[in-house]
């Protein structure tokens, strides 16, 4: 691939200041089973190249799904014309320094290759998960699915960049629906599609898989007779599989510098954070430490370089509650004049890179789960996201979970169904009163972080321990 791409750049007949090609080849599989019967079995292959051309400070792009030399040449010409046509109207005069020369490679760690199990063996496993989930006649539906992605990318540029990255990732999901008359409850393994990691087929069978599968089935039934979550203000304890969503929506998105610069205002929205807030804003309580960390082995959005060639490093976004830097690529840093991270990423070869959050983690402190619960006189403990909504400035949010427990006098007591909570972002993070330790720190991810015009769904990873927030408004379901 290297020689073809470099040869292509050398052959282009365009007077450009800089040219880059990002070629992507991706093979993904998806298999799912409902009630023990096959629903989807398939493999998808995509290949293509994104060409970017810098002319007089203007970047234009063209993407093609053919890597033939004539197609790459045509795309380069198109990208050049796009840049020229926009040259009088360009938002910022970009320079080659926003596309620095970089050479290197990154590969996901893995133990078992994706062909270690046949499609039939994977289906057998999924069928067995469905059978194990059905712990009771009240379970009216069981589902199980697994998908894999093998993504290779090559980035070359006229100033000598050569970056190769190979990412292997796997996502698993299973859950059960229980019904008793008009009462219907769903329970899944950490919420929809939350178990997403880099690695190989070893991730298909997690530790204690069958115990967990049975537990999910039992909890779905348990929810049918559970009390509604009370409407009150109380201590809210969030499990790591809900903290994932909390970090994503109310820390990740508001810190994206392209949102702060206004690029996303027509679609995903802006932010309540301003450029002047970096280094100053007290975002939350002193217990809040959030890192952008693409170096965590096996986390879903780990990588060595972003899609413009910037080297990815671990950085504090919030340290002891104070906002340090934003999620901004080299382009956004140049435009905004604030510090950022290596986060220019594209969902595939057919979309231009924009600011994305990668892995965003809440760093652990020192509280065990037992210590946390035993210290609470009254509260609600919630697990696994099932509903999410937050405004365009990332300020007023409302999230719902699948499963909850009442906390009374230092103990988890009654199971609660339809648990929800709402707050504003600053109020919520300032109410963080306890952070769990490394033992209860867990990481999850999602392949469906949506953003951008044209739209892009991208993969992100989030790790967190159990956390406690004081005096939060919680409530249940019902019309």
């Amino acid at each position, binding site marked *: 691939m290297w020689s073809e791409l470099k040869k292509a750049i050398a052959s282009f007949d365009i007077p450009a200041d800089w040219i880059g090609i990002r070629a992507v080849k991706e093979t993904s599989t998806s298999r799912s089973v409902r009630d023990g019967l096959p629903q989807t079995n398939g493999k998808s292959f995509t290949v293509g190249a994104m060409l970017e051309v810098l002319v007089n400070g203007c970047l234009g792009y*063209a993407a093609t799904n053919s890597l033939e030399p004539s197609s790459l040449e045509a795309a380069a010409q198109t990208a050049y014309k796009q840049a020229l046509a926009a040259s009088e109207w360009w938002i910022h005069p970009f320079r080659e320094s926003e596309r620095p020369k970089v050479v290197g490679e990154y590969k996901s760690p893995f133990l078992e290759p994706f062909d270690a199990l046949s499609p039939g063996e994977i289906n057998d496993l999924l069928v067995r998960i469905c059978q194990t989930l059905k712990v009771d006649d009240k379970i009216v539906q069981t589902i199980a699915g697994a998908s894999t992605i093998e993504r290779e990318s090559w980035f070359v540029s006229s100033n000598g960049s050569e970056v190769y990255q190979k990412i292997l990732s796997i996502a698993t999901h299973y859950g059960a629906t229980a019904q008793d008359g008009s009462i219907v409850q769903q329970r899944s393994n950490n919420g929809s599609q939350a178990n997403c990691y880099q690695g190989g087929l070893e991730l298909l069978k997690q530790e204690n898989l069958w115990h967990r599968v049975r537990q999910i089935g039992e909890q779905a039934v348990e929810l049918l007779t559970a009390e509604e979550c009370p409407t009150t203000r109380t201590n809210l304890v969030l499990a790591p599989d809900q903290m994932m969503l909390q970090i994503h929506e109310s820390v990740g998105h508001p810190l994206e510098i392209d949102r702060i610069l206004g690029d996303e*205002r027509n679609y995903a929205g802006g932010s309540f954070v301003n450029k002047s807030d970096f280094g100053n804003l007290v975002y939350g309580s002193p217990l809040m430490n959030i890192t952008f960390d693409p170096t965590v082995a096996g986390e879903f959005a780990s990588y060595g370089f972003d899609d413009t060639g910037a080297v990815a490093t671990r950085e504090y976004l919030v340290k002891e509650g104070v906002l340090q830097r934003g999620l901004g690529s080299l382009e956004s840093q140049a435009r905004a004049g604030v510090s950022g991270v290596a986060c220019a990423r594209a969902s595939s070869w057919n979309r231009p890179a924009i600011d994305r959050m990668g892995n965003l983690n809440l760093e652990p402190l020192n509280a065990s789960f037992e210590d946390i619960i035993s210290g609470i006189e009254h509260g609600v403990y919630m697990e696994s996201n099932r509903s999410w909504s937050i*405004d365009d400035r990332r300020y007023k949010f409302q999230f719902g979970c699948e499963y909850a427990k009442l906390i009374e006098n230092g103990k988890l007591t009654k199971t609660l169904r339809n648990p929800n909570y709402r707050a504003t972002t600053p109020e919520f993070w300032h109410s963080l009163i306890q952070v769990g330790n490394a033992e209860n720190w867990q990481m999850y991810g999602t392949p469906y972080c949506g953003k951008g015009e044209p739209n892009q769904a991208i993969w992100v990873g989030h790790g967190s321990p159990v956390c406690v927030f004081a005096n939060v408004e919680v409530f249940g379901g019902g019309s």
Partner: protein
Amino acid sequence: MKIEELSALEVSFNRLIETLLIKKAENEQFTVKLSSERSQFTRFNHAKVRQTGCVADGWIELTLMADQRSSVRQFPFTGNWELDWQLAYSALQELRDELILLPIDPYLVLPSGTNTSREVHSGNLLPEEAVVSSVLEQVNELDFTGIYAGGIVIKGYGDSSGQKHWFATDSFTLDYSLFSTSGQAVKGTFAGSDWNKSAYIAKISEAKKQLELLARPCKELPRGQYKTYFAPAAVADLLVMLSWGAISEADIQQGNSALAALSRQEKQLSPAFSLKENFQRGLVPRFNELGEMAAPELPVIEKGLLVNTLVNSRTAKEYQKTANGANGSETLRAPEISPGNLVFEQILPRLDTGLYLSNLHYLNWSDRQTGRITGMTRYACFWVENGEIIAPIENLRFDESLYRFWGENLVDLTNFQEFIPEVGTYDSRQLGGSLVPGMLVENFTYTL
């Protein structure tokens, strides 16, 4: 895309189907789905260009079925026969090897029927090099942000029973927001197959008038219940929720539908509320993943009662229902909510005191079983007193059941409808949109 290129893609697609028919074994059946586009995407911010480029994309989805089993392969489609056939043939071989390993699927539906269709809608779009100046010259003194997406979109289908469909359309959408200095905004969409400069200028002029209203100081409202007018774009946002765990027959059967209570006739909506699928506008293909054609019109909710759910052939087979040409995910493709009696001039007087909402944002079920939806107000939303717009509002979170706002609390729908184009571009440029009226609702619940 030039006509010759479009024609070459169609020829290549047809050849692919014909060659697969020759290669298929007697016990095998297949379907082939094509999605292709040549699109320009130009993204704006502060009336400047943020990103601009073109995407030439296309893929084939080949499904092979044999011995009550099926599997799918998706691969690129370039129009270059040698490349495309090599990928298709290798996919066919892989599918054959895989099928024998898979479990039996009792609800597998094989392609059948003799449907064929061919629709090519040509347009008169802006030349690629003229997009930036044509859009920005009208708004260069405004804080304009958004995206122009234009070009040709192709959807094709062929199968082993001889069905074949080809749908190509040349179209554009300009999806934009105009911001005031205080951060309030007016949202607009301008879409079609012909770029009409005077219509675009008129649109922008109209938006500027709304922008003036937004210059007034914002009003912060306490949580509570308010009489509310939802403009058509906001109604369209609520309507989209019906495609996400509501109107699908499979979702109803599997305990995953917000309309289960309506289906069981435990609840009903207002007699003023009627919804149908209406493909007569021709903006989206009528064929589905099995080449089946939906009826030109399908009533879904009539006078508050659920008269049809969306049923595809697989669901029909599993639950002994009658299929009605729904797509694989049983989502609305050409929805239309019937108009009511509220005339434009009476919107503010009938609202009297309450909220005028132009758009909503980030909707989700907060309790699907009771039809409860949460979301935010967004863009050009106003506080109205005694029939007069008083001030823009600070955005509010709502949490309300569709059984209330389309049921007992629905006052009226407007006697006019607006077409709200689909502007989504995940995976590829989406087609179509919703035809909806505005609506007036009592006691809508705001929670934050």
